[in-house]
């Protein structure tokens, strides 16, 4: 039988555990950003171009935007458990964060599409382009330029929001570091290290976005 001593110091063997946390954070961010963006494109487009959708989607948009994420995690987790289909913590995170990201980002999609001058749409349609051709070749590429900087900001925020999924038992980076702090009592060191990992994830995203924005600016 093995006993874990209280306050045993940090060891190299803790690294795989931290990396597991990093991995889980990355997986969750990637899944939520992907699904969230897909949802946002559909919702943003619907809300911009289909008047009925504005009314129908309003409750979803308002609730998701106004209720704190941490409550949403617990509600979704408990609802599924009560319904007899308990979900893996990862899936709770993916569902809640995707829907949340979808709503936040749909505003950016809407703003992007709304920023395209209607005269450009007229010019496209007058050349014989259909609604979809105009959207695909003119409005969407132009909307992307408005959409992109805000989207990057949302993805970075999302990366950090994944930390909240720990409330339903998902061991992501922050949760992993809390476990280590409890054991080692080296809060400052562990948190500094954890912050560094978050930085290492988010900073390349910012760098990449700045480069992309510069290419857009040449247009």
């Amino acid at each position: 039988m093995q006993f874990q001593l209280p306050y045993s110091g940090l060891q190299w063997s803790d690294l795989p555990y931290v990396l597991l946390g990093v991995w889980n954070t990355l997986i969750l961010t990637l899944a939520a950003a992907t699904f969230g963006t897909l949802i946002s494109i559909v919702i943003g487009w619907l809300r911009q171009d289909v008047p009925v959708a504005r009314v129908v989607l309003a409750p979803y948009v308002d609730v998701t935007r106004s209720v704190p994420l941490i409550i949403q995690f617990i509600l979704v987790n408990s609802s599924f458990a009560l319904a007899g289909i308990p979900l893996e913590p990862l899936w709770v995170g993916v569902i809640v964060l995707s829907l949340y990201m979808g709503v936040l980002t749909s505003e950016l999609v809407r703003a992007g599409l709304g920023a395209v001058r209607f005269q450009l749409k007229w010019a496209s349609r007058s050349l014989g382009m259909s609604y979809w051709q105009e959207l695909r070749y003119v409005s969407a590429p132009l909307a992307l330029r408005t959409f992109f900087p805000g989207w990057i900001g949302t993805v970075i925020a999302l990366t950090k929001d994944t930390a909240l999924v720990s409330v339903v038992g998902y061991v992501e980076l922050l949760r992993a570091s809390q476990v280590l702090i409890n054991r080692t009592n080296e809060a400052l060191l562990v948190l500094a290290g954890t912050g560094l990992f978050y930085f290492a994830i988010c900073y390349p995203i910012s760098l990449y976005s700045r480069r992309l924005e510069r290419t857009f600016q040449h247009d």
Partner: protein
Amino acid sequence: MIEIENVRKSFGTLEVLKSINLSIEKGEVLCLIGGSGSGKSTLLQCINGLQSIQGGNIIVDGTNVHARDTNLNTLRQKLGIVFQQYNAFPHLTALENVALAPRVVKKQSRRDALDLAREHLEYVGLGSKADMKPSGLSGGQQQRLAIARALAMKPAYMLFDEVTSALDPELVGEVLDTLRKLKESGMTMIVVTHDVAFARESGDRVAFFDQGVICELGPARQVINDPKEERTRQFLQRVLH
């Protein structure tokens, strides 16, 4: 041939076109003149279905533009239109601007569309600007680009909606030269313009619009040099002096 029969158009309670009758023959250049808000631009937008109408018919080569079963996307390929604001696609190069519709709408191969685009840029004198984005072009160049883009769809009719009004005076000439060249090639054109001199010299007929009606219609020189209607006379006096 374009036939316009009793066309009425209103925006809310504001009646912009009140029973317009007009027909444009193949090969003709018809200039529409008149004050701001007289309805001439709106009429152009109605002709290619960008605006709905509240009464009457517009028939283009036998097709009723506003009939429910008319495929506007097909019909519009016949009706090139160029607007006051150049409306070049800002994310595409000049060449791509012109090649886009032939490729997407007419399903031409990329290479054919680019060849076609080059040919039309050449035609409007922008051969050397093919790889530039619109932001790098002057207003006059952007307007010629818009003309090339419309021509690349090989339309039977060209509609020009105050294409020189947004331009600096010294850039007007190059755009008008393109219009003259197009007239010489036999293109059927409806030109909304404030440039009375251009209308007199290049128009076959001129229609003077006033408050949503055609006040006077006749041979270009006659309408401008010797108008029959008092309102036409007053308008011309204001713009010529």
